[in-house]
């Protein structure tokens, strides 16, 4: 191109404000100045407002005594603990709901997603109704429904519903037996770990053998058997160090056992069913994305239905399912902040709610709360990117 006739050097005909380079630099400068000005204005206003309201800035308040109780604490906490401790309790409660919710949402999602593609009309109908109804109702509505209409309507502890003689459901929550660990528990845990290790090694060995000879081991019964039988033998040998403390009705309430508060149950059930419906749609889309030719090819190679699904369809479907699945997990974690609507002591309720009201440190507290969720979402997206890179199609 360069040996084409260049226009006369010197003044070009167009004005320099029409030069794309000048324009782009000018625009960016304007944008930057605007943002900096806005930021400066916010900071300046905030400083003046805080001075006027006599609020001290800084994170020193985290060491002050909180003075309020929290209904569910995973780490030791009392009213004399600090706000920092309250933050930790709230964060752990959020993570607890997220982890339990994700676990159940995944199970629900996979079953319903496969059910949506079932040849069985009744199963398909039920799955479709489930997905359409749940997805089209606001999550907060569902949380309130479970909390107010289902769990609060449970009988009082005296008439609580008894499952298997061990679990009691009442309007005070769900009471389950508490495992008590005595000396020798270590051996049982070690034996469980050893069994797990053996199962993992066996799994890889079986996979290799299948690749070579076409015959693998029936891993599901072997694995489950090993993981149940070995710890059981260990328990028997050490004289059953793990026992269950059964809840007992004394007067108007239960003594012993672990009480799962109704707020936790309502939140977890609502989030798991809500997110499960979305995961079901992702699973369905993922399975549908695997072309039918793959199934036919697998059948013609002589793979049975189960093997076709497990070895051919699902690995390919996972590639499509995983990215939206992680964003659903993230959504569930973010939606767990709806806990504040029913008073479950999660991060937002404890920290951005009670602590903010008590200390008035709006800027610090909201920044920390938002920061926590941002960090969670960044971690998730990093993990997702790594996974995506691993499973992405290697194209020629």
């Amino acid at each position, binding site marked *: 191109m360069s040996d084409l006739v260049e226009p006369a050097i010197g003044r070009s005909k167009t004005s320099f*404000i029409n030069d794309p380079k000048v324009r782009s630099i000018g625009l*960016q400068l304007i944008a930057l100045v605007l943002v900096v000005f806005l930021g400066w204005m916010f900071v300046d206003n905030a400083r003046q407002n805080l001075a006027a309201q006599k609020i001290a800035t800084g994170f020193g308040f985290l060491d002050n005594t909180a003075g309020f109780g929290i209904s569910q604490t995973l780490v030791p906490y009392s009213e004399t603990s600090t706000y920092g401790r309250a933050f930790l309790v709230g964060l752990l409660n959020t993570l607890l709901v997220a982890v339990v919710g994700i676990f159940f949402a995944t199970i629900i999602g996979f079953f319903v997603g496969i059910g949506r593609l079932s040849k*069985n009309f009744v199963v398909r109908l039920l799955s479709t109704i489930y997905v359409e109804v749940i997805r*089209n109702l606001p999550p907060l509505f569902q949380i*309130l429904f479970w909390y107010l209409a289902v769990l609060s309507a449970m009988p009082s502890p005296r008439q609580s519903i008894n499952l298997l003689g061990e679990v009691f459901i009442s309007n005070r929550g769900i009471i389950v037996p508490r495992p008590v660990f005595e000396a020798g528990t270590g051996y049982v845990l070690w034996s469980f770990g050893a069994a797990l290790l053996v199962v993992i090694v066996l799994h890889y060995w079986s996979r290799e053998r299948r690749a070579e000879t076409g015959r693998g081991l029936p891993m599901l019964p072997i694995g489950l058997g090993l993981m149940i039988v070995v710890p059981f033998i260990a328990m028997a040998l050490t004289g059953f160090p793990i026992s269950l403390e059964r809840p007992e009705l004394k007067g108007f309430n239960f003594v012993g056992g672990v009480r799962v508060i109704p707020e936790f149950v309502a939140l977890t059930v609502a989030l798991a069913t809500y997110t499960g419906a979305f995961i079901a749609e992702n699973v369905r889309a993922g399975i549908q994305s695997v072309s*039918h030719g793959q199934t036919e090819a697998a059948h013609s190679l002589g793979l049975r239905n189960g093997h076709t699904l497990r070895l051919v369809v699902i690995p390919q479907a996972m590639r499509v399912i995983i990215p939206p699945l992680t964003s659903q997990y993230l959504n569930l974690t973010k939606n767990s902040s709806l806990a504040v609507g029913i008073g479950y002591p999660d991060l937002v309720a404890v920290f951005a709610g009670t602590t903010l009201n008590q200390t008035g440190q*709006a*800027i610090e507290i909201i920044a920390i709360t938002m920061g926590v969720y941002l960090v969670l979402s960044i971690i998730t997206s990093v993990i997702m990117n790594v996974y995506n890179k691993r499973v992405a199609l290697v194209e020629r």
Partner: protein
Amino acid sequence: MSLTFDDGTFIRSELVTPLPPPIRNVGIIGWMRENLFSSVLNTLLTLFGLALLILIVPPMVRFALIDAVWTGENREACLDPGVGACWPFIRAKFAQLIYGFYPIEERWRPNIVFAAGAILLVPLLVPSWPMKRLNALLFFVVYPIIAFILLTGGNIDASSFLFQRFGLIQPITGDASIAGVNIAFWADFVLTALVAAALVGGIIGLIGGNALSAGRAVLLAFAAFGVLVLAWDIDFGLRPVETRQWGGLLVTLVIAVTGIVASLPLGILLALGRRSQMPIVRLLSIVFIEFWRGVPLITVLFFATYMLPLFLPQGANPDGLLRALVGVALFSAAYMAEVVRGGLQAIPKGQYEGAMAVGLTWSQMMRLIILPQALTLVIPGIVNSFISLFKDTTLVLIVSIFDFLGQLRASFTDPNWATPVTLYTGFAFAGIVYFLFCFGMSRYSLFVERRLNTSHRH
């Protein structure tokens, strides 16, 4: 041609009529054998599913229709043991669920807003209807202004602009006003517009640009802004209604519609910024989008409620609903930006190159070639994000704005209607309302998707 054999061999000369398929393989029986009872597992699933349906559906129908109470004045009507839904409760609370505590004699105003919204929205949604551009302009620009004036009562005092600060005009005009419009303010406004236009035009002209068109652009911008302010400023004689009195479905719809109207243009700008060649603009857009997408809406609402007032000048104390609206708009703009970006990425490069080759400027290219295609492509995505926005409006009840769900929750505490079935009736009604809105939107999105045929099904 017919074959004949002498040795008595028999050859059939016509086909046997085929036997009908075995009765077990066709018709209803065949379908059931194929789909419901093909294996032991399948049979078990069918029976289990049927049991579940029988467990769920008849009790629900009995509760909502057969055993339901339809008439009554207070809780006495619904106290009998074993009664179903207490519909009189909904009838008694209906106005509260729709309007909140909006003054009864002023409820014609939200009614007009509802009706106008429906009248403008329906033709916008029917693809074959003509005049889409005018319709969109009416719905996205004119309608919000009218709705704002009707709902709040308008007549917001516009008192001082640029020169007024220095007390330049007041002495000349005094406090004269026409229909609630302050003359001094408007003299100030026009003066400011002229000065700004002259200034910008002058600078552009000095560095070699087109001074006239620059000045005209500034004047146009001022004129548009002026019309907006004037609309708010004129006293239509409507009684002002504070947003604290709004509630129910009205607030739900106000938040949802404001969210979509504000988030669409903002989202388009952000999406363009994110795909821009300019590093600073791109970085700012990415940070903005990822920040809002990374935090839950509740924290955004807390931010808007507790933190935003600190960032504004002292004395500026924006209305509670307005603060929530700002939060919701920013939040949904970030999601909208990602939807629009998806559409922009789906436009083949040839479209950009073609537009540049015929000599269009960047804004012409975007306005005339790229965005129309990109936006049409992502209508389903836009509708989907509107659905989640609609569902998210319920969250405002946490910052004490009583939307539909908030009013419902408040109505549960009325001792006049304290019955064992009140709670379930309320949830059933609200569930039906939310479901109808969201399901309707999702069906519409599917319909558009099918019509555009953007999904590639085998």
